[in-house]
Each structure stands twice: as structure tokens, then as C-alpha cells.
């Protein structure tokens, strides 16, 4: 036994290294010729984030199509064709960072981020060192923006808002009002920051807060967290989670007899997979979304949110997901910054991103001194009869708020 286990482990390590290596092979086209604006994007096209990575890629692709269909990026009177170079980071933060370095070696200074906070965080450090500039489409963890970085700009609302928005919506709309909130969170930075934001908000609004139960990111078994929480009989269960854990919370709560007035979860409920995998159990679950089809605002490339949704449906054959939208918005911010700067020089583009203040199909895009877009509210959605319906903020609501949300 001993004699076999050692080489096996060594080989597993070797195998892991090989996978890591795979992502960094192959070089992007290289020099930006005079009629083209080249932007680099390391994407999670394989590995654990492949699904979200694919949606992010769609968002970037649609942006490229729309901008080029309008003639290209207007740089000081000259129209440049937008050319986004995609590379696969295999969902590994270290590979995502290496690819940014590789883009830099090829002279590509303008970067669109990979998917998720871990990847984006490792990329942001490299961007800063290399003097590149990055528009961040999906890295929401506040930790990315507490490092003093000057060259990463996130179009999406910060992680602290995800759960907090759901709590604000419940506080505003629910009758009878719940008394207590229990929190369950995955243990990655983004989810933990989200849980903290939610707990702070609930305390501020005067609710009883049952401290968060944590489990490993990607867990499909959250039964022990549920067993813990069940004894406190919370009125609302808030999960700051990704899809797998979010599905597990609802499914296993049902199995284990935990029946609060409502479940609220970040990230998972707006995705079509959530309703598909849970079936009727998904009904009533609240979620927060960076964007919905009723988000207010418009821009010259995408029109308004409804136009955007129609374009995604037409191009990719599925309803628009907020992961698509945030990616397109990051690309849009970069394009607008280049146009405002009248130059592709990374320092000039950085300054013009920092000064950007525009309306778009994604809502307001404007950054604070840390590079976060705190000027755009998040939307709260509820699954009703298998459909995702925007219920908050009320001026963008598509349907009425169903309460108590579960037990239908």
C-alpha cells in the first residue's frame, strides 16, 4: 500500500500541474495593428466556473459585435475595430493571473476580467504591477478593492450589497414582518463578505440575527448547517452562496423539515439552472441580481435592458442572464473610457475610467475612489411559478411580492 500511494500522490500533483500548464499555452495574436483595438480576456471556459465563464464570454462577444456593427471604437476621430482575445484560465486564479502577464508580454494593456472574485483578485495584482487597466465584470468581493489598487474598475455592485438588498426588500415589503434571520454562507471571500454585509444590514434594521453557519465552497451537502439553524426556528434563511450550495440549502431544508417564511439567496436564484434543478421547490425563493430586464437606463451601443435581453436571446438562444449583462457592461465601460480618452494609452484610459459617469442598459456606471460601482442599486427577484420576477426596487418591479414566500 505505502509503496503505491506515494507515486500516486506525486502523479496526481503532476497531473494538476499539467492542467495548470494547459491554460497558459498558446499565444494571443500579438501586436495591435493600426485599425484594431485589442483587448485581452482570460476566461473560465473549463473547470468549475465553466458555466459562468461561458456566460461572461457571451457578454464580451455581444459587446464586440455591437461596437463593431456601429463602426467600431471611436478613438480621436478614427474608428478601431474591437478585437477581444479570449484565453482559457481553467477556473484557476493563478492561471488567470499568468494569462494577464502573457497579454502584457504581447503588448495588450487593456484587460477584461475573468469570472469570480478569486480570479479577479489575482488578476488585479498583476494588472497593477504591469501598468495595465482592467474592467472587472464579476469580481465583487470588497477585498479586491481594499488593496489600494488604482487600475481595476468593477461595474457591478459590491459583495456587501448582495444579501443586504434582499433584507432591505423584505423589510420594505413583507407583512407580517419576520423577526429573525439566519445566515448560511460558503467559505470563499465573496460569500463571507456578502454574509457580513447581510448580517450588518439586518442588525441595523433591528432584526434578530442568528450568526452564520459556514461550509466549504462547492459543497453539495449542507445538512449540518441546516441541523444547527433548525433549532433556532428562524423566520428567514439567507444563503450567501453559489448555485450548488444554494440548491443544496433549499433541497436539504425540505428534506430535514426546516420551513422558514422565506429563503433568500445571493447569485443562485436568478440563474435558469436554479429553477430547473429545484422544480417546484424553487418557488418563492428570493434572490439578488446585478441586473434584470427592467433595470432602468440606456446607452448608444446596447439600447435599454429589454433590447439587451432580446439581443442575447437572438444570438445565444437563451434568456439573458445577469452574468451576460455584467460582462457586456464591463466591456462597454472600457470602450467608453477609450473613446473619452481619445487614446488607447493605458494611463489615459485609466484616468478616463476613473472619471466615467454614464447611464447604460446596466444602470449607472460610475466608480468611487476604490474602483467600485456603488452608484447602481441591486435588484431583488423572486421565483414565482418557475419564472424569475423582479420585485424590488418597487419602481422596477414586474410583479407583486409573494409573502410568506414558501409553502406554496
Amino acid at each position, binding site marked *: *500500500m*505505502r*509503496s*503505491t*500511494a506515494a*507515486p*500516486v500522490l506525486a*502523479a*496526481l500533483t503532476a*497531473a494538476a500541474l*499539467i*492542467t495548470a500548464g494547459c491554460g497558459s499555452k498558446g499565444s494571443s495574436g500579438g501586436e495591435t495593428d493600426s485599425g484594431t483595438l485589442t483587448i485581452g480576456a482570460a476566461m473560465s471556459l*473549463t*473547470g*468549475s*466556473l*465553466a*458555466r459562468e*465563464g*461561458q456566460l461572461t464570454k457571451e457578454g464580451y462577444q455581444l459587446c464586440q459585435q455591437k461596437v463593431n456593427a456601429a463602426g467600431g471604437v471611436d478613438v480621436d476621430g478614427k474608428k478601431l475595430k474591437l478585437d477581444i482575445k479570449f484565453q482559457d484560465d481553467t*477556473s484557476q486564479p493563478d492561471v488567470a493571473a499568468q494569462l494577464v502577464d502573457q497579454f502584457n508580454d504581447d503588448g495588450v494593456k487593456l484587460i477584461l476580467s475573468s469570472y469570480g472574485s478569486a480570479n479577479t483578485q489575482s488578476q488585479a495584482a498583476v494588472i497593477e504591477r504591469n501598468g495595465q487597466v482592467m474592467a472587472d465584470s464579476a469580481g465583487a468581493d470588497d477585498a479586491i478593492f481594499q488593496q489600494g489598487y488604482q487600475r481595476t474598475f468593477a461595474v457591478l455592485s459590491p459583495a456587501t450589497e448582495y444579501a443586504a438588498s434582499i433584507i432591505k426588500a423584505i423589510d420594505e415589503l413583507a407583512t407580517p414582518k419576520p423577526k429573525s434571520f439566519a445566515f448560511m454562507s460558503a*467559505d470563499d471571500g465573496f460569500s463571507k463578505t456578502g454574509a457580513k454585509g447581510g448580517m450588518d444590514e439586518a442588525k441595523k434594521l433591528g432584526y434578530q440575527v442568528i450568526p452564520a*453557519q*459556514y*461550509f*466549504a465552497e*462547492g*459543497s*453539495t*451537502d*449542507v*445538512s*449540518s*448547517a441546516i*441541523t*444547527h439553524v433548525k*433549532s433556532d426556528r428562524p423566520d428567514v434563511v439567507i444563503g450567501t452562496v453559489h*448555485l*450548488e450550495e444554494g*440548491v*443544496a440549502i433549499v*433541497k436539504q431544508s*425540505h*428534506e*430535514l*423539515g426546516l420551513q422558514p417564511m422565506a429563503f433568500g439567496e445571493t447569485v443562485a436564484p436568478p440563474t*435558469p*439552472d436554479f429553477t*430547473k*434543478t*429545484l*422544480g417546484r*421547490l424553487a418557488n418563492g425563493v428570493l434572490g439578488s441580481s446585478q441586473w434584470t430586464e427592467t433595470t432602468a437606463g440606456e446607452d448608444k451601443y446596447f439600447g435599454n435592458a429589454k433590447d439587451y435581453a432580446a439581443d442575447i436571446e437572438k444570438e445565444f438562444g437563451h434568456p439573458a442572464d445577469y452574468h451576460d449583462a455584467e460582462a457586456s457592461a464591463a466591456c462597454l465601460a472600457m470602450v467608453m473610457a477609450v473613446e473619452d480618452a481619445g487614446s488607447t494609452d493605458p494611463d489615459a484610459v485609466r484616468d478616463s475610467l476613473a472619471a466615467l459617469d454614464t447611464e447604460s442598459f446596466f444602470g449607472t456606471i460610475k466608480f468611487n475612489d476604490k474602483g467600485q460601482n456603488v452608484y447602481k442599486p441591486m435588484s431583488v427577484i423572486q421565483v414565482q411559478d418557475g419564472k424569475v420576477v423582479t420585485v424590488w426596487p418597487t419602481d422596477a418591479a414586474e410583479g407583486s411580492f409573494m409573502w410568506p414566500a414558501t409553502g406554496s
Partner: protein
Amino acid sequence: MARHWLVTAFLQATVYGLLQGGLLALVAVGFSLVWGVMNVVNLAHGSFVILGAYIGWELNVHAGLDPLLGMFVAAAALFVIGYALQRWLINLVVNAPIFITLLLTFGLSLLFVQGMNIVFSANYRSIQTDYASTSLTFGEVRVPLGRLLAFGIAVLITVALVAVVNRTRTGLAIIATGMDRGAARLMGIRARHVYALTFGLSAALAAIAGTMVGTIGTFNPAAAGGFTLLSFVIAVLGGLGNMYGALLGGLLIGLVEAWAGLYLSGTWMNAMAFLVLVVVLAVRPSGLVGRAYYAARVEV
């Protein structure tokens, strides 16, 4: 209240852990069989589990077949794929050092996972049934029906596997080839065929496990790696060369994870599972009930 909760929570975690462990055992039993008999660590095992889940899912969605029936179709399909892979591919390098088979099966797993990404997309899926998320209630302890079924199937299949291996000619041929391929061949056993049969059987078991995984939880191609790692841990923990090893290993991992989640924190579940592995290996290097008979195998 507090004392009452402690008892209920302990019982609930224990029941849940055992049920989860049974399913993990079913995931790992085929992996352990192949490793024990052929000394091949099949890194593509997790992708067989996921492929089985997709077949079960397709049959459920498009033909309305219940996963309890669909799992047999998935098993048959994976048996054919597994048999062919071993017979015409892995057999070519089965005598080579273990690194070569590791690399080959690692490559196969990349191929399968990426293939499934292309064919089925990376979307998460789940096989929907009416019964999977209903629960039986005993006092305040709940026993989810879907998990109970998966557990029952896991135990039944392990017992059946032991019966097949110990009591049929084919099974004895598998054991004999595992013990000493040279001698087995001299007795007229076609080692290539037996190896392919073993690998096919292993893939079929993975497919059944996969269909069950899909029925009680969610899956997508990226989950394959996790199942391979889990199978590795359980096989080593239970010990090779004994079909009950995987069952015991699975149950132990299930229990340890459930208790760790309850008494420490959900984030400690994996760490505790590996700690148990280390402790067991320190005390019993060949696993809980393993015999490591391939170590004495005569290479020819």
C-alpha cells in the same frame, strides 16, 4: 431544550451521514475494484459517474424513465464504454509503470469532461422525481426517501458484487487474475478479457452511482474531479482487495463529515475526512479491511 436538541441533532447527523456514506461507497466501489485487480488508478472514474448521471437525466427528461430504471440503462451503456476502453486502450499499457496508466486515465478524464461540456453544456442539472425530496419522520429525525433509496441500492449492489466475485466463475477469474496474472493465464483465463470485464463492471457501478447522485443532488461536468478524489480517499481508507472496503470507507467518511459539520463547522468536513484517512493509514497501512494482494502479484 438544549439537551433534547443535542440528542436530536446527533441522531439526525448520524442518519444523514450514514445515508451519504452509502452513496459515496457506491461511487467508490468500482474504483477500488479496478485498482485492486489491475493496479490501475482510474482517474477517469469521476467522469464515468457524471456520464452515468447525464444518461439517467436524458432518459428521465426525454423518455420519462424513472431514475431507478434509468440507472440500469446507464449501467449498460457505461459497461460497454468501459469494456471497450480497457480492451483496446488501457490493456496496451497495463504492464507499464503506474505513471503511464495514471497519465492515460487522466487524459481520458479530460477528454470525457470536456466532451460532456460540449455535448451537455456546463449547466447544472438534477433528475426530478416526486419522491426524492420527501422524507420519512421518526420522532424529530427525518430520513429523506431519495437518500434512503440510494443507500439501499448501494448496499445491495456491494453485497451483490461480493457474491458475483466470490461465487461465479467469472468473479473467481477476476480475483485469480488480480492475484497472479501469469498463473491465471496458465490456467486458461483470458486476462485481457477479464481486465476489460472488470473495468466495464466498474464503469457500470459508477453509472448507477451517478444516476443516484443526479437524483438526490445536482451535477455538472466539473464535478467529475471531486468524485475521483473521493473514490481515491475511500478506496485507500477501506483498503484494496476486499469489496467491503469501499462500503466501510464510504460509511466512515460519510459519518465523519456529518459529525465534523455538526460539532466543528461545515468548513472542517473535508479536513476531518482527510485526517481520518491519515490516522487510519498510520495505524493500518493497508486500510480498514484491505489485503493489498496485488503487491504480491507476479508480473509477466
